[in-house]
């Protein structure tokens, strides 16, 4: 083995990588090279993290303007922006939450803009939410529309650097208004999505893997917390799910199936040969009235059709008729059995 690499050699290489990536995204070949470099020694990871941090710090110099004249900062009051930029985080001040920062950071990485480091006080996140069974169409100021499905919550913050939406829970469909200069970013869990012009939905439910469906355009998807920050580009008619072990699985979905899966926009649930148990589970998202299925065999029967999402009774009766089942109303729902 060759001589142990010195820490200053590592620092020099880390600085080089940090600057490269700050300027532009690496291409596939460079990315692979970077990952090889990074994974060979834990000190390299640390050096790279530090190089990035130093670069962030140095970028605060932007607030100083074109002239970096050190003496002038002793006697004159600081330019407001500069003071703002350099101020450390203080708990008593509304600071960026970590989640917000993650998205903001992707915006920085993506656009090369550093306005993020001086967050404007006016960009207050707005929160929208829906109750069980409710869908809501939210037109945003930039022309984008967001449709919120049942029991969902998003916070939206639009400013010059980025259009940021955090999906806190539930499901949302985004029809993104095109804007080349201001990326549209969605953060869901530790997944960051970026789109320029696209129609896509994101679904984050406790008991299911995170799911992204792209109807139109393309969406970049990236895990925020991985060293190997591989960006997946999802094209139209693709569904991507984030599995438990962190891998992203992409599958093609025929347009008609996609449309069916997004029927909730109109307050409908649409099934084609869907197991009854699965359909019942879907209805549970929209109503407190539960559909219970008496036995496994009944649950395995399949259903096809379009039903009102907020009318589980109507669904149960229609299904019972088709499958020759008994319907029994209980105080909190409906039971289907033979």
């Amino acid at each position, binding site marked *: 083995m060759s001589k*142990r690499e010195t*820490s*200053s050699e*590592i*620092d*020099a290489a880390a*600085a*080089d990588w*940090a*600057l*490269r990536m700050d*300027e*532009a995204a690496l291409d596939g070949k460079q990315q692979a090279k970077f990952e090889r470099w990074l994974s060979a020694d*834990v*000190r*390299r*990871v*640390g*050096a*790279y*993290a*530090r*190089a*990035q*941090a*130093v*670069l*962030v*710090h*140095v*970028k*605060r*110099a*932007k*607030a*100083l303007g*074109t002239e*970096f*004249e*050190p003496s002038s*900062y*002793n006697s004159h009051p*600081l330019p407001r922006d500069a*003071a703002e930029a*350099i*101020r*450390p*985080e203080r708990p008593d001040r509304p600071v960026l939450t*970590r989640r917000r*920062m*993650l998205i903001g*950071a992707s915006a920085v*990485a993506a656009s*090369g803009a*550093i306005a993020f*480091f001086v967050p404007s006080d006016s960009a207050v996140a707005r929160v929208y939410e829906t109750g069980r069974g409710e869908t809501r169409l939210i037109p945003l100021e930039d022309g984008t529309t967001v449709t919120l499905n049942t029991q969902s919550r998003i916070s939206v913050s639009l400013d010059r650097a980025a259009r940021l939406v955090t999906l806190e829970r539930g499901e949302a469909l985004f029809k993104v208004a095109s804007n080349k200069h201001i990326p549209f970013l969605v953060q869901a869990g530790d997944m960051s999505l970026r789109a320029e012009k696209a129609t896509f939905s994101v679904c984050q439910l406790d008991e299911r893997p995170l799911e992204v469906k792209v109807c139109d355009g393309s969406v970049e998807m990236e895990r*925020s*917390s991985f*060293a190997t*920050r591989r960006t997946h580009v999802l094209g139209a008619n693709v569904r991507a799910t984030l599995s438990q072990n962190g891998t992203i699985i992409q599958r093609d979905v025929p347009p008609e199936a996609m449309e069916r899966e997004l029927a909730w926009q109109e307050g409908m649930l649409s099934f084609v040969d869907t197991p009854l148990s699965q359909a019942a589970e879907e209805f549970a998202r929209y109503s407190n009235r539960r559909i219970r299925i008496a036995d496994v065999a009944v649950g395995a029967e399949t259903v096809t059709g379009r039903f009102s999402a907020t009318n589980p009774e109507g669904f149960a009766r229609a299904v019972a008729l088709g499958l020759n089942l008994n319907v029994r109303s209980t105080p909190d729902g409906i039971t289907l059995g033979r």
Partner: protein
Amino acid sequence: MPDDFDLSASRAVWLSRNILPHEAALRAQISRWRLPPDLEADDIIQEAYAKLSTVDIDGIRNPRAYFFQVARSLVLMHVRRSRIVSIQAVEHIERLSVPSDEPGPDVQVSDRQQLHLLATMIARLPEASHKAMVLRLVHELSHREIGERLGMTANAVQKSLAKSLSKFIEQLGRGGMTPSDASNGVIAREDQPDNVETRDQLRD
């Protein structure tokens, strides 16, 4: 698979605000520990940053104390692995306390001082490097655009910027951010591995 490292820009922002300002003080602390022969403070600092790229930052109430603790446990790990070092050395380090929770007033660097130091660091770059850095930071030009203005190749610009950034990494980590340095406009040089002043201040 070992830890997942978060090398996102947001983590970098957090590190730059909460960790970087304490690096010089930590170096001073490490210099008082007996390290195994082939281990240097720089190695520990780099490993500590790597560790800080794996932890949940929301859970860290006191980044400075955490940074010191991480470094201490890394040193201990290395000392235990190194067979050359005696048991006494381990005990020596184990007895060392981690500094108090709150940085003293001497360590807290004001906004103005940080900004002043930053301006000083940039101002001291050689002329061509300085120009390239300003074009990159203030005008946000690409390396190619900077090259066109300065009559250099994009690659040469990249190299120049990287060299400047390496210098900043060095300076910021070695006491360049202590208030005394900032107010005197003195920046630690490469041949000055320890900032004696910092060490003295921390002893109180």
